[in-house]
């Protein structure tokens, strides 16, 4: 039983890697890129730029930021560099949000039944 010494969640992250994830996703263009990569794994910077009102160079810069944050990875295919989403941290987070929300839905329904019966 080590948990009582654990500190409650605070507003600051002490982990630079985590800061990089949040900073990466704070930018709407990068969130859009993540969405595009979710829909089209293996896209190139050129292909992504074609659907965005920004240059290929700007896309490449955003992809580098996402890469540094661990949210995408790239692989070389001949002369092309193809990008894929690294969804694991996102999937874990989504599962947490769904599970905790579902638990509270159940508890609050029981609270309603307790108080309104």
């Amino acid at each position, binding site marked *: 039983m080590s948990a009582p010494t*654990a500190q409650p*969640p605070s507003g600051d992250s002490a982990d630079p890697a985590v800061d990089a994830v949040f900073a990466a996703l704070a930018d709407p263009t990068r969130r859009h890129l993540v969405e595009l990569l979710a829909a089209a794994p293996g896209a190139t910077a050129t292909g992504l730029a074609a659907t965005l009102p920004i240059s290929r160079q700007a896309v490449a810069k955003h992809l580098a930021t996402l890469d540094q944050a661990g949210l995408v990875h790239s692989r070389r295919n001949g002369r092309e560099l193809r990008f894929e989403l690294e969804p694991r941290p996102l999937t874990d987070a989504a599962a947490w*949000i769904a599970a905790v929300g579902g638990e509270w839905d159940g508890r609050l329904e029981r609270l309603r039944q307790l108080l309104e019966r």
Partner: protein
Amino acid sequence: MGCVSTLAHTVERSVLLAAPAQRVWDALTDASLLSEWLADEVQLEPWEGGEVVCRDEEGEERRGEVRLVEEAERIAFDWWREGEAPSRVELVIDAVGNETRVTVIESGAWPAASPTPALLAATWGARLRTLALALGRLVLA
């Protein structure tokens, strides 16, 4: 995105109850009433630093500590499953006409089994809402 730092990684739910605020407050702070809805067996000392123990019938146990009590307005506690990081639960009461709204906000840590040590190592606060928003669209959609 200048406001990102004011946001938190949270789950929020609310329910509007046809009951007076004092009765709702009792249901949030009286262990025998809490055992009717929060978990199958609840011990909760409704003062700051008070102990929290919740068990369900499958035997799962959470322990916790009360962090904040504002009489008839809000109570907050941290709780955790053994071996996992704590999450913060805040229950807030608002009178709405003849009814009472209860809002719950849980801000927490990822499951201990998470394969992402960098995220696990984090303390959860501000900028995680950004992640949650991204997730809601990307993964749950």
